[in-house]
């Protein structure tokens, strides 16, 4: 059985990517792996004590965000499409590439959160397209 991996960060582009990936998994009879990557915030100065939540909270937040997106977008595991979710810590592109190592397709939005609007491609989708060993599908939200 084939596997399609999609990166979801809650941005409109990633939601469009999620729908595309789900539909393609249904058409191909593939499994769908939905990946959210979270990162510990980089700080340029020492924050006040207690201002930064502990890492385990950030991971739990990421998981809650993912589940909320899935419920908002009406994506659930079904007989048609087996769905699994992965929440992992690290740089977004690295996390997606790791998840997509044995995938048939890696699906990303054309621009996620945190992209500079001036970038031609979102930096994450650009890195994925540059380094993935499987085809990368770039889906636009508009």
């Amino acid at each position, binding site marked *: 059985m084939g596997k399609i991996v999609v990166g979801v960060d809650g941005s409109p582009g990633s939601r469009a990517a999620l*729908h*595309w990936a*789900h*539909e*393609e998994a249904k*058409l*191909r009879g593939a499994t769908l792996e939905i990946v959210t990557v979270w990162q510990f915030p980089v700080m340029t100065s020492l924050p006040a004590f207690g201002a930064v939540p502990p890492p385990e909270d950030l991971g739990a937040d990421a998981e809650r965000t993912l589940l909320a997106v899935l419920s908002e*977008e*009406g*994506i659930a595991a079904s007989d048609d499409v087996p769905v699994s979710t992965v929440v992992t810590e690290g740089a977004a592109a690295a996390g997606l590439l790791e998840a997509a190592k044995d995938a*048939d*397709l890696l699906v990303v939005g*054309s621009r996620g959160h945190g992209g500079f609007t001036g970038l*031609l*491609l979102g930096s994450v*989708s*650009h*890195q994925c*397209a*540059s*380094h*993935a*060993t*499987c*085809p*990368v*599908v*770039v*889906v*636009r939200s508009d």
Partner: protein
Amino acid sequence: MTEGRIVGDVVVAIDFSDRTDAVIAEGVALARAAGSTLHLLHVAAGEPVLAGYDKDEISAFTREARAGELTDEHRRLRETAEQLGAGGVDARALVVMGPTAQKILEAVEHVGASHLVLGSHGRGGLHHLLVGSVAEEVVRRATVPVVLVPVRGTH
């Protein structure tokens, strides 16, 4: 809400590089899954401009050579389309001439494609670029999902 995808044709942009087969295979996978038509598109380079050489015989010679190349490219594309047709995929061959990214996008519009497949790098040989300039421009301007198939230099 689960929105159904509009299933339209698939355009595969190919350049006869050694990774063309992988790019076509990805287009076939998409077209097969959706039962849609596959358009094999090759964008041929425009006629070379020979600055400083305005002698008629030179331009006639290059025109003839180009025409021969184009005929050959179209024949190869038709053969590939026929092979795919024998395998049950409705495939068509299309050769156009002009600026690569622009012509690819025009073709997508023209056939009303819902997907576009191309290699992450073309034949340009600029493999130090992370993503080829054509792929980058196409992804930036395309209104449909773009499938980038990894194509790397051998070195």
